[in-house]
């Protein structure tokens, strides 16, 4: 087990290296470099800058160097924990991201927890009460849940809350807590707000997981050991929870690998629509304003979160399934 985890952990820096190169290619792709946008920003605010100064700056930042050298510069700074400066905010990128990283992770994790809390019982109920009214209703909800883009759901909920109840459900805090320092009251306030966006982000995943759980359990319920247990007089709900449900959970764990990363990247749109403090909207603004080093740093963070999410799921799966652990 330890060997398996070490092996995966050793792979992590290598993956990050590959990603960092791809990301650098992407952020370098738009025409012009960051000095072009910097000069544009300056001239927009009325400050002019001479050609020599630009040339000096270009040299100072290494922008006159070949592509690969520039990449190595960037990488060296990254390794020293320097994510560069944001042009738009005039602040270190590391600070900008750091402020919102915690809440980004919290939102995804909350979404993940909600998904499982809802999907597992719903799937079990659907399977044990196959073709009942509730099963059919759940199936319809599942299909619609998968088909609705989550930003659409966010828009509909915001509109209903605003038009019919006169409340705004954007943000993660009530207005009075937005700039307040962390306290118990602020934390409680956060919990009061975070569940709705978390649910919105997780809705498609919940629907999909419910379907997987239902199908898995239905397969298990027809097996002879269930009949044996029933013949021995085990109570139905106890029987279901004790044996087939546990087996049906196994394939569900393997979905974490794609689900957790999907939550991180899916939260981007919902966070933009619902105006949540999240690195998603920060990335969007950076991309639109060509604040490329900020965008690059955020993309790197997303990749890191994705890799870690996949890693966690692989470890969870290896712990549950000895065949993977032993490399069989």
């Amino acid at each position, binding site marked *: 087990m330890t060997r398996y985890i070490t092996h995966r952990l050793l792979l992590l820096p290598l993956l990050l290296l590959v990603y960092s190169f791809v990301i650098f290619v992407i952020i370098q792709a738009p025409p012009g470099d960051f000095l072009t946008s910097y000069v544009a920003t300056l001239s927009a605010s009325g400050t002019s800058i001479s050609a020599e100064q630009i040339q000096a700056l270009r040299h100072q930042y290494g922008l006159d160097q070949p592509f690969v050298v520039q990449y190595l510069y960037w990488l060296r700074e990254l390794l020293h924990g320097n994510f560069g400066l944001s042009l738009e905010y005039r602040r270190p990128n590391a600070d900008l991201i750091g402020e919102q990283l915690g809440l980004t992770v919290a939102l995804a994790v909350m979404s993940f927890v909600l998904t499982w809390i809802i999907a597992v019982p719903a799937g079990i109920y659907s399977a044990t009460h196959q073709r009942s009214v509730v099963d059919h209703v759940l199936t319809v909800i599942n299909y619609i849940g998968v088909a609705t883009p989550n930003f659409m759901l966010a828009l509909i909920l915001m509109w209903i809350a605003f*038009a019919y109840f006169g409340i705004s459900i954007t943000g993660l805090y009530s207005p009075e807590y937005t700039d307040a320092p962390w306290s118990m009251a602020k934390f409680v306030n956060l919990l009061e707000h975070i569940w709705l966006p978390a649910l919105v982000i997780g809705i498609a995943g919940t629907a999909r997981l419910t379907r997987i759980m239902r199908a898995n359990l239905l397969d298990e319920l027809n097996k002879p050991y269930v009949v044996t247990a029933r013949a021995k007089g085990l109570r139905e709900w106890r029987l279901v929870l004790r044996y087939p449900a546990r087996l049906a959970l196994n394939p569900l764990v393997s979905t974490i690998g794609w689900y957790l990363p999907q939550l991180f990247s899916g939260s981007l749109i919902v966070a933009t629509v619902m105006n949540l403090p999240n690195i998603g909207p920060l990335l969007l603004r950076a991309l639109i304003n060509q604040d490329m080093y900020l965008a690059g740093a955020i993309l790197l963070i997303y990749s890191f979160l994705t890799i870690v999410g996949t890693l966690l799921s692989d470890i969870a799966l290896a712990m549950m399934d000895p065949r993977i652990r032993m490399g069989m």
Partner: protein
Amino acid sequence: MQLDATVAAGAVEERIAVASNWTLIWWRFRRHRLALFSAGVLICLYIVVLCPDFFATQDPQQTDARQAFIPTQPLHLFDGGWNPWVPAIVGKRNPITLRMEWTTDPSRKTHIEFFTHGQPYRVLGLFTTSIHLIGATDPAQRIFLLGSDRLGRDQWSRIMHGTQTSMTVGLVAVTLSVILGVVLGGISGYFGGIIDQVIQRLIELLQSVPTIPVWLALSAALPRDWTPTQVFLAITVILSLVGWTTLGREVRGRFLALREEDFVLAARLAGCGRMRIILRHMMPTFLSHIIATSSLAIPVAIISETSLSFLGLGIRPPAISWGVLLQEAQNIQTLALAPWLLIPGLVVIVAVLAFNLVGDGLRDASDPYSH
């Protein structure tokens, strides 16, 4: 009596025994009522894709600031007898906000006609006509079946044109994915060895990419001065970059399994070339799976395009797609004022739902010999 039933059952059995693979798939698919109905919905949507102008009531780009935020004018077919009409709109200036506020007045009727003449357009680039499915009896009268947006553009007509873009994006992106997936997956599975290893690592790498952020960054990198067609093609390429991996894996798995089959060996011994073995002998056995998988990939591509365009980094105005239309609905104040701007979202949901149902039906039917 009993003999008759036995004979009839025998006839049915024989009919099944001699039916081709595709006939069996069709018979099985036909049993899914919901999938069949959804296939009908999709056919209707693709008819709109072929010629959105016929369904549009006016030019989707025509703006008129004085006719902003007009509510939906629901279509009524009967007025006494057959006499289709929509309620007329009445504008009143709000004395506080000084904004024009429009309401519908069912007592005043705007009469409309089917197959009426209106703005001329080209059909598939072949010929010009001016016949529209629906339009006001008085050609000068604009009607807003689904209301208008903040620039006074007719939402109904815009949805028709958006349908063309969005449904095509889905189809083209998935076609690209299928080509990439089949070719690379096929190479990976058929040759194995180092090529297989390289392609498999590539697939793993691509599948662990945080999709939406990377898509956003890629579309932000597209030059600003590209034409809508260029942007459209670029977006489909971006979407299929990740989309092919699922299919690639599946095709590889099938190739690996089939490679050792007796009929492949027989074909090789009979002197068939490599291409012939792949195309004539191996492909047909899993073609139905490819179709089922790709029909489930189309809705994913549609949702992705809609999301990108909604964020302003996908299809760009003046081109129209469902996501571009939903951009109008981003602001909560606007939504409270004009909730009908959410209608394009409902169209997205219906289309995606239909694709998913058809895809599920196809997947169940794609292996007609299983039970």
